[in-house]
């Protein structure tokens, strides 16, 4: 048996993939989010400090003065280890107070710069003045190194990643649980199968989820086929042992009789009976083997598109040598168009041959093999002009060795049983029709071309 990767491994791989991709995505998102959050938080600090300084700018006697409030620096000191820089820049870029060379190039409220060898984030606030003595804008630049931002970003990211890791672990645990729980019906099926008696081929009766209902149905279907075949085999053996013994014993008795007979005329008569018995035995053997073969084929041969007209022609052709009937009395009644159904041509032919043989033997000539179409049903039947089978015997005729008139020398009564098997194998049925000529027909689903 070919070994496949276990389900657990497959799910494990899939989960690992999901976790890896998801983890990478979460990491990127967490980094981005952490950086963004830290940036926003400390940018507000910077803007707050710049606003406080800007608020402390006054114009006195036409000169710009600024008395920086302590709170501005205390605000900046909330980032405990970060170096700071600031500048108040008057019109024309003149430095009013603070660090020289702290004018960012861009227009936005934030910029990056390197101050005294350290990367800083700068916030810029412009305060416009419209006084008599001074009209214009004074610019406040406040900068801070990035340690606290980086630390906060790291903290947020780490926190988010821990949550993600916890979620991953939880997911893995749940996945293990889910796999176990999903596979438990299979284990149930396995136990149910293992617990069976060796010859028990009845359908499994295990409550399973929809997803593996198909599997159980297949197992049951398989077991049903097996059961039928075992049954057929058993029948064949039983039939052979039961049905063949008597005719063979009779043959031997006749043969003994023939050997001991001195009168040539009587000996001739015995030999004629011997021959008739042998022919009958041959037919019985044929039918038994056919029956077994048809049951076997019903389960094992793939169905194909069959034209019932060909089946009819073939059955008539093959019946001519075998049937006791007068060949001239065997007629065909076929439609012009092909009548298709899904089936096994050999089984169908065999069934029709049996019907022909029955009709020839028990009915009245002429015997007609007819093919017809009724809506979705295709029909292949054999008509004769005899009395037909009595209603009470029709059901029994379909079981083996139950003939209305008992087991005869020439037939074991398997004919209708075979037809019945073939009908079942083709999802069809046997139809009897009285009224006009008596007809026994196989009605099976038709396939439209």
């Amino acid at each position, binding site marked *: 048996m070919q070994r496949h990767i276990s389900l657990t491994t497959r799910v494990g791989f899939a989960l690992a993939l999901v976790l890896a991709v998801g983890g990478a995505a979460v990491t990127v998102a967490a980094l981005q989010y952490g950086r963004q959050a830290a940036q926003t938080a400390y940018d507000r600090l910077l803007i707050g400090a710049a606003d406080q300084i800007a608020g402390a700018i006054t114009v006195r006697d036409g000169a710009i*003065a600024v008395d920086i409030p*302590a709170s501005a*620096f205390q605000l900046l000191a909330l980032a405990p*280890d970060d*170096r700071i820089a600031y500048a108040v820049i008057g019109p024309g870029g003149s430095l009013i*107070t*603070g660090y020289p060379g702290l004018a960012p190039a861009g227009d936005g409220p934030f910029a990056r710069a390197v101050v*005294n060898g350290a990367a800083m984030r700068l916030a810029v606030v412009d305060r416009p003045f419209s006084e008599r003595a001074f009209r214009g804008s004074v610019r406040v630049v406040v900068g801070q190194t990035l340690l606290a931002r980086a630390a906060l970003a790291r903290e947020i990211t780490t926190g988010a990643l821990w949550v993600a890791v916890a979620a991953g672990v939880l997911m893995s645990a749940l996945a293990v649980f889910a796999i176990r729980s999903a596979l438990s019906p299979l284990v149930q099926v396995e136990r149910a199968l293992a617990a069976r008696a060796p010859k028990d081929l009845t359908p499994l009766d295990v409550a399973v989820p929809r997803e593996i209902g198909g599997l159980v149905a297949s197992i049951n279907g398989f077991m049903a086929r097996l059961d039928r075949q075992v049954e057929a085999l058993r029948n064949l053996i039983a039939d052979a042992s039961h049905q063949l013994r008597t005719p063979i014993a009779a043959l031997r008795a006749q043969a003994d009789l023939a050997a001991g007979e001195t009168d040539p005329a009587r000996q001739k008569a015995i030999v004629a009976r011997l021959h008739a018995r042998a022919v009958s035995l041959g037919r019985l053997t044929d039918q038994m083997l056919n029956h077994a073969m048809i049951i076997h084929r019903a389960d094992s041969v793939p169905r194909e598109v069959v034209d019932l007209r060909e089946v009819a022609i073939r059955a008539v052709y093959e019946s001519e040598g075998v049937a006791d009937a007068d060949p001239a009395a065997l007629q065909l009644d076929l439609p012009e168009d092909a009548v298709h159904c899904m089936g096994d041509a050999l089984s169908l032919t065999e069934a029709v041959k049996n019907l022909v043989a029955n009709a020839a033997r028990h009915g009245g000539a002429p015997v007609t093999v007819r093919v017809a179409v009724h809506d979705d049903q295709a029909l292949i039947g054999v008509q004769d002009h005899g009395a037909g089978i009595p209603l009470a015997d029709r059901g029994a005729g379909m079981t083996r060795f139950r003939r209305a008139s008992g087991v005869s020398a020439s037939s074991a009564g398997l004919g209708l049983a075979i037809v019945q098997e073939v009908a079942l194998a083709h999802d069809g049925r046997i139809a009897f029709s009285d009224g006009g000529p008596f007809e026994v027909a196989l009605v099976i689903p038709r396939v439209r071309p």
Partner: protein
Amino acid sequence: MIRTLPLLLLWAGAAFAQATPEAVAAYGSEDAARGLIIRSSTDVDALSPALQAFSATRPDIRITYEQWGSNDLYLRGEAACRGEVAASDLVINSSVDQQVKLVNDGCAQPHVSALTTRLPAAARWRNEIFGVTREPVVMVYNRDLVAPADAPRSRFDLIDLLRPEGSRFAGRIATYDIEASGLGYLLAFQDSQTATTFGSLIEAFGRSGAVATCCSAEIIDGVAEGRYLIAYNVLGSYALARASHDRRIAIVAPQDYTLVLSRAAMIPRQAANPGDAGAFIDFLLSDAGIAALTQTQMMLPEGGTDDMGLGPDDAASLRPVALSPTLLLGLDRAKRAGFLSIWRGTFPATR
């Protein structure tokens, strides 16, 4: 601003004209493998026990100790940062705002050890500047000339003493000249930021003709000799050291609030021997270092000291000057100009 510029030039010019230390001392063998240059605003005598103790454990180091005025020390540090003069290996300045500015301007390098990480947040910034001492800022009076009952216990008392017309304290109160002393400026500016009392106090100083002069030693001498009755904002370490052998000197830690200064040590970025500088910082923070600093009154015991009426109950009135960029405020050009102009209006005599 226009007024500040010539001042700064004058200031810088003065520093470079007399760019020599006030005193130089050396410890350890001249043949020692490595040299350690320390520049400090601290009197040699005050740090001497610590330097000797450190030198005793590290015979492989030759320590050169240069004593500078706090403003000169800052200017020298700034020049070293720009690469204009040779950097020292360690700078210890009582003018901690200027030290913080050097650190903020990227002139320091970090030093991390088990001892530095144990420092409280107020005594450490960026692992680049460390508060190595703990000195209260006090008032000193002459015990012979001012009865203890009359001595001020707080700034409010001091203001009250100066209020009456013709008070005997008029013209006999001394404090630092904040233009000449970086430490003086820092303490005055911290006062202005800590309480509104400062406005009344400086107004009282101005009205009564208080004297702004230079240097801790001179001020304490003046009090001892009776030229001044009271000195305001004197570093407790100097006062205590003097009081220990001069019974005329009495010390009061103001009860309204007492600033506590930690001299700040930093290792310049261009230091030639940062390893030994770090070792010396660690030594100062160790038990042995604390013992040596306590010997020269530079380490105020946690429980306070009775010598200045500062008991354990007064811990709430202690205001440590935290090492943080908030100190940069006082160094802001515009802020400093404004503050100095108020000061100058108060002490016209010193101009």
